[in-house]
């Protein structure tokens, strides 16, 4: 039964994908790249230098742009008068905080996570209106667009097991809008300022949309687990509801529902029939949708009103290779555009004049002070489509060193974690650093990746052994190599979490393809890791992991499917590994048991395999500490130097050398001469 469903699902996806897309022709990409001037070698720190500007936000009336500007030691809150171009400082010495404009554009909400303050734009007077009680999990949710200067705050009373949503005014006065036993995922506020629709999970973790009628919540709509059920807007009478839903159990689209019958009408879906709707930009004044935004494989903004459509067209023509976020409002004459791309280490900001249909860059001076890397020195990220052996089109990205012959450069395959996640067309410091050091970087969005519709995401079901998912990755590498990208003798693979697992799979089942692998926080047996994680404590009110896995096709109780995964796992096939392997693990990883990694490494050592292991103390599943990140980069560069002929890596500084000495538990993957350097000896 399972197999039949699986085969039919794969077949359906195959037909759909084959019909919708064709493999990318690599020749123009390779040729265009070769024509580019070669980039100079940049310093490591150039790739991680942050912008001086944060939280750049346009006021709803379009008169002001508020932003944080970081100095040498502290950050200040400033506003730019859009009409005159004058800037003024409202507050100095601001720590980490988020900014939100009040609906009347006269004040800013500053949310520090611990407290909420309101700052007057004209006088800069700051008033704390709420101190968040951590015990009650109080947090800022949004600005209340139905009131001039009000914020919405949520809390959870664990003792009473009650969730609350409250409105807080600029004078600090509060008003409870919702109280109930269910956690609010979404809600809509009607013209009278009352909560009209709520989106919760029922006792079986299914999405439930309810409408308030006669002071009671009445069920309006149910959505399947894991599918989108996002509330966007509602008509004043509550009879027309706009939501983001998975259309035909596949891609997320903007859908209008007529109540009470629930008749559906798709307002907007990806015209290329490829991507999920990633977000809907709303009017800050009315809450009505203005733009539909799609991010796969690159960002497209589609206007939903006449002015928005005009702007979207202008933006698409002006910024062909960039991801633009639009801050728009019906009242504003000029809209704020935030430009991001794979080649921008720091964002650029533009004002779009709706009448003149022109673009004017703002904050050029502040951006220049941040010393961003010139974009011509960085690599383009080319979106790829390639056909897998079962005929399905698989997606991904390729970054090539500018001015280099793609066939002669070593290539690193980077596998994303999740596996229910995806690479995007954005700036990634590690990718750009690797490209700058002369490596091509392939980032496959194999089946199970998100952003391409649920059918693409769910296609593998539980085939996470040496099966469909792994084949998507390996076939992508072979397709590139066969089509003149990457030196076949200088290939490597790396990844974190599931990406690390895939790396181990690659070294196990395709032992001659890659010269080395680098696996970080990597499960050595996917089934075992999922079982352990599913047995741990979940988050209050959220879908338990075991149920989540079942929804994505991984049934931990399906012994046959789990056996297939385990039988082909790296842990069960350690003897097949021949190429050097670098592993990094977190000593306190709640997802991947450190004992599983040490057991695997010990088994490899027993077989005389070249394996290295760094165990980072006090790190969990995400390596966050700067020193650990430094060690990660250093070891990757060292592996590239030793096994792919990468550039020489300077010796680590004293602090890093000491850290490596303390945390490197095994070091067989780096030849003896390198070990001394790696260990700071």
């Amino acid at each position, binding site marked *: 039964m399972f197999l039949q469903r699986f085969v039919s699902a794969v077949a359906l996806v195959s037909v759909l994908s084959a019909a919708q897309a064709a493999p990318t022709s690599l020749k123009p990409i390779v040729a265009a790249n070769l024509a580019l001037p070669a980039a100079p070698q940049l310093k490591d720190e150039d790739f991680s230098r942050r912008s001086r500007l944060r939280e750049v936000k346009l006021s709803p009336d379009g008169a002001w742009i508020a932003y944080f500007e970081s100095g040498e030691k502290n950050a200040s809150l400033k506003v730019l008068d859009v009409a005159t171009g004058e800037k003024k400082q409202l507050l100095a010495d601001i720590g980490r905080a988020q900014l939100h404009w009040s609906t009347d554009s006269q004040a800013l909400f500053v949310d520090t996570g611990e407290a909420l303050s309101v700052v007057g734009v004209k006088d800069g007077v700051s008033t704390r209106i709420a101190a968040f009680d951590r015990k009650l999990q109080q947090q800022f949710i949004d600005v209340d667009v139905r009131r001039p200067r009000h914020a919405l705050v949520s809390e959870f009373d664990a003792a009473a097991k009650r969730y609350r949503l409250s409105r807080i005014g600029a004078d600090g006065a509060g008003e409870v809008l919702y109280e109930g036993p269910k956690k609010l995922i979404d809600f809509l506020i009607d013209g009278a300022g009352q909560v009209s629709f709520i989106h919760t999970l029922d006792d079986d973790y299914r999405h439930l949309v309810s409408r308030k009628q006669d002071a009671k919540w009445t069920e309006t709509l149910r959505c399947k687990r894991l599918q989108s059920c996002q509330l966007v807007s509602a008509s004043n009478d509550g009879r027309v509801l706009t939501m983001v839903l998975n259309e035909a159990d596949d891609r997320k689209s903007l859908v209008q529902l007529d109540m009470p019958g629930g008749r559906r009408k798709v307002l907007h879906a990806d015209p290329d029939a490829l991507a999920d709707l990633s977000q809907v930009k709303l009017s800050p004044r009315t809450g009505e949708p203005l733009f539909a935004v799609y991010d796969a494989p690159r960002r497209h903004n589609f206007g939903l009103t006449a002015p928005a459509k005009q702007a979207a067209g202008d933006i698409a023509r002006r910024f062909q290779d960039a991801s633009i976020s639009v801050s728009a409002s019906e009242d504003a004459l000029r809209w704020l555009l935030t430009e991001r791309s794979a080649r921008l280490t720091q964002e650029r900001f533009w004002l779009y004049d709706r009448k003149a249909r022109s673009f004017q860059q703002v904050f050029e001076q502040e951006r220049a002070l941040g010393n961003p890397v010139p974009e011509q020195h960085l690599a383009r990220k080319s979106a790829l489509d390639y056909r897998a052996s079962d005929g399905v089109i698989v997606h991904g990205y390729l970054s090539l060193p500018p001015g280099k012959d793609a066939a002669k450069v070593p290539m690193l395959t980077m596998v994303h974690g999740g596996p229910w996640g995806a690479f995007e067309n954005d700036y990634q410091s590690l990718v750009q650093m690797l490209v700058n050091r002369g490596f091509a970087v392939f980032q496959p969005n194999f089946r199970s990746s998100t952003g391409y519709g649920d059918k693409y995401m769910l296609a593998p079901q539980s085939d996470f052994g040496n099966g469909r998912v792994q084949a998507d990755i390996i076939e992508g590498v072979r397709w590139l190599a066969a089509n003149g990208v990457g030196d076949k003798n200088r290939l490597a693979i790396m990844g974190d979490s599931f990406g690390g697992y895939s790396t181990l799979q690659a070294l196990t089942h395709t032992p001659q393809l890659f010269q080395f692998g680098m696996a970080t926080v990597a499960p050595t047996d996917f089934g075992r890791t999922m079982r352990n994680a599913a047995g741990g404590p979940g988050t209050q009110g959220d879908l338990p992991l075991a149920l989540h896995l079942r929804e994505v096709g991984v049934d931990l109780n399906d012994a046959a499917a789990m056996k297939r995964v385990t039988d082909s796992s790296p842990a069960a096939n350690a003897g097949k590994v021949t190429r050097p392997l670098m592993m990094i693990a977190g000593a306190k990883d*709640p997802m991947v048991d450190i*004992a599983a990694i*040490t057991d695997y490494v*010990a*088994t490899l*050592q027993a077989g005389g395999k070249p394996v290295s*292991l760094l*165990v980072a103390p006090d790190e969990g599943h995400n390596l966050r500490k700067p020193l650990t990140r430094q060690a990660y980069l250093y070891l990757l560069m060292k592996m590239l130097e030793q096994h792919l002929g990468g550039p020489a890596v300077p010796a680590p500084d004293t602090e890093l050398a000491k850290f490596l000495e303390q945390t490197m*538990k095994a070091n067989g993957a780096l030849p003896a001469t390198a070990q001394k350097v790696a260990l700071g000896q």
Partner: protein
Amino acid sequence: MRDLFMSECRRFRNAALIFAAIHLALQLFVSRLSDILQMRWEQQVVALALYLASGFGFALYQFGTYRQPSRWLWLLHRPMPRAAIFGAITMASTALILFAVGVPALLTVLSKAYLGELTVDTRHYLLVAHVVLFTLVAWLAGAYVVLSRSRFAAVILVLPWLMLAHLASGRAMLVPALLCVGLLAYLVYTVFKPNRLGPPETAVALAANAIPLQLGFYFAMLWAGSVTYQYGQMVANVHPLNRAVPPAGAFIELTRSSGREAFLQGLKESNDPRAAQWRRQVALLDVADIEPAGRQYPVRHQVSNQDMLQLEDPTQHIQWTFSHDAMRFHGRDLYTNAHRGWIGVRGLGDMTPFAGVPVLVKHGFMTPQQFYAIDPNAKTQRQLIALKAPETLSGATREIGGRLYALTNHRLIAYDKPVDADAMLVERFSVALPGPFSDLDRIDIARLLDGTLLSFNAGRQMIQGASDSAQTVMFVDDAGKAAVVARRALAHDFPPLFEHKEFWLSPVLQAIVALPDLLLDKGFILDKGLAAYSNPLQRTRPAPVLAAALICTLLAACAAWLWLLPMAIGARRKAIWIAASLLVGLPAIPSLMLLQPRPPRPLRKSIDATAPAAA
């Protein structure tokens, strides 16, 4: 007698008044700095030392002034019995001590109870009684030292130390304190005689003097011998604790090794086919450990404090102090001193008393059988662990490899991390300690993929002569089944004669010294199956040690015989001394020399020999 009593009181009246005033002022001053009744015993012992010094110094001065022959004769040659003279002076001194020491201490306790609303229990009134008794003991010891014929009589101080230095219940400790006062009073009486230089007159007096002195010399010989031996080892650079590398395969090496090193060392001895893989894994893992956080719990009504059982709530300005009478925490407002309620077993406002005096640990309280976690926000406690007596917790839980571990005197218990915050911990597995708890140094824990490796590192009692100490490595599989996979017998750091020195020097005195630990409940965490913390009589002694003990007793008997040979004393007394030396061993000899001195050599012969010939 009354006149002598009054005259002695008058003699020290001014000194007692000044002492009492200074004493009261000091108490008030220290009270402003800290709650002296709740101080840790290490801090209170400083005050105790001052009381002891005062009592001892008082006796030295008092009898020092009488010690001159003329004054001594003047004192004793009164028309009244010796006992009455001694009684009058002792009662006068006791009254002075009561006035100068007892009254200010009692006033301080009363002021705390009725003026400051501080937590004052019955034990604090008992503390006043003990302070008076300690000072009296010091006075009696001082009197004995100053009236004895030899300065070596100072070893008598070992007696109060042996009898009174115990953190047991204040009520129970009244018995040894009164016994000590009685014994010392009798001892002082035996030397309170016209001929201070003469030996004890009766057999009872002889025994009463001999036994404490023998105990004193026992300790003196032990300490002097031990220090000399160890100093010699250090000079020769062979002292196990002092040399660069400790002896291989012995306890010091094991206790200083990291968990990883200990596992690698232990697994060397394993015949298990999985041992090689474990050794490789242990080298890659961070090994954690758990060890007994303490070896002793506070005892209810003990007069001093093992730890300061006080908590402060800075938000509510409340100080919570544990009351031994109520067996709950008593709340006091830090600003107004007003009563602010109680914390019982279930938290704020609960009146259920704790089963035992708790110990404060990280995020909770611990009693011998219960562990409670504190929720600082909700101001509640929830019981996480409940054991059945006599199994006793030796510390708080410790999180290792995603599990919580608790060490008791019987087992190492592993619990699953709780999913429900209000639930008791659920036991995943437990492993019985492979040896006595008192011998356990620490347990190394390495979480593996398919189970857990444990290394029980013993050997703490080897320095006390424990035999069969070993490192035991166990593997506990995922089902919780434990199996020994390696056992490594530990070599001894010191030679057996050093480790068993307390025994062979005098088996009898060693047993007497152990008596307080056997008789008093001092809150020690006991080994499984034992009713007392330490029972040296049950310890196995190697043959060389037994031989050394025998040789020592024979030597002592011979020495006694030789010492007594030229003396003109009765055969019965000689026989008693030789038998006592045979029983007690070498420490009997100095006591014999002190109590049964040889008569001074006659001077006439030498005078004759050196006198010029008559013309």
